[in-house]
């Protein structure tokens, strides 16, 4: 199966990804990563840590960025570089909006500026979850430069 992408241009916005991350999602992520740190699910521990609610594991944002990029650029792409700086904690039940804008295009790769924004919720107003964030994605190949 080959997906023919339309030509990419600087300034193109990739389809955004919005995801509400429930406590159940957080428990699933804890299981998938063998990370049972109680701040992510245990109300008693959360209260003792003096944070408003169970804290979403920040690494989830990396997984969502990858999902956004691969969904937009097709299965024959490879996320080669991905970086992000955390800005605010996200709590159970909040919704994050991940967005990407093409900032450079070459024959075999594209560079994308990314953002993750937590939408307004009972925990507070809209705020950045991760910014700045960037990715370099190789095009035309499902695997990376280290593949044999």
């Amino acid at each position, binding site marked *: *199966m080959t997906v023919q992408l339309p030509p990419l241009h600087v300034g193109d916005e990739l389809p955004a990804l919005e*995801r509400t991350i429930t406590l159940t*999602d957080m428990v*699933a*992520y804890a*299981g*998938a*990563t*063998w*990370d*049972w*740190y*109680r*701040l992510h699910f*245990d109300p008693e*521990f959360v209260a003792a*840590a*003096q*944070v408003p609610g169970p*804290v*979403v*594991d*920040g*690494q*989830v944002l*990396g*997984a*969502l960025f*990858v*999902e956004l990029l*691969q*969904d937009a650029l097709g*299965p*024959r792409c*490879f*996320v*080669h*570089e*991905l*970086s*992000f*700086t*955390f800005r605010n*904690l996200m709590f159970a039940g909040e919704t994050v909006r991940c967005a990407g804008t093409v900032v450079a295009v070459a024959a075999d790769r594209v560079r994308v500026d990314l953002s993750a924004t937590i939408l307004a919720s009972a925990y507070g107003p809209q705020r950045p979850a*991760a910014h700045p964030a960037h990715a370099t994605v190789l095009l035309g*190949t*499902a*695997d*990376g*430069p*280290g*593949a*044999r």
Partner: protein
Amino acid sequence: MSGPERSGGDAVGLLTDELRALLGTRKVYTAPEPLGAAAGRYFGMAVGDDNPLYSDAEFARAQGLPGVTAPPTLICETNQYANLPMDRDGYAGHSWHLNVPGTRQVRGGNSYTFHRRVRPDDVITATWEIHDLTEKQTRTGVDMLVVSSRATYTNQDGELLAVNEETIILVSLDGAA
């Protein structure tokens, strides 16, 4: 692990001799078994990513891969192969144990470089190293210590899979909001 860790006590000079001694420290964790296809499929389900590259071998092969692969960032979650006991906070993974009185600990960010797709038969080794400790001040004048570490992920044949540059920030509670 993410989020604040608060430890009590009076704030001291953040870059102590004890912390400085960590510079160059390495910790190496090797998985006791291959990653397995289920680990990648489960991670995809957990984050809501239904990309068939993680679950459909025929689809993955049609894209030029040998078979299913794991979502790229899974490799950076090292608890599965750190094989460490769970602590009282429920954490069972790599830590530098940066317990500095009078500070709270927050994640700064990550910079990943992926070299190739991880495969179910990869037996992963993660090599962590602290490569920089820098004292700074926040924009509001609060002391902080930025700890930069690097994890390099290889497989049983020594193939480079990924590199993860991570920053952890210890923020002084003295004067912090």
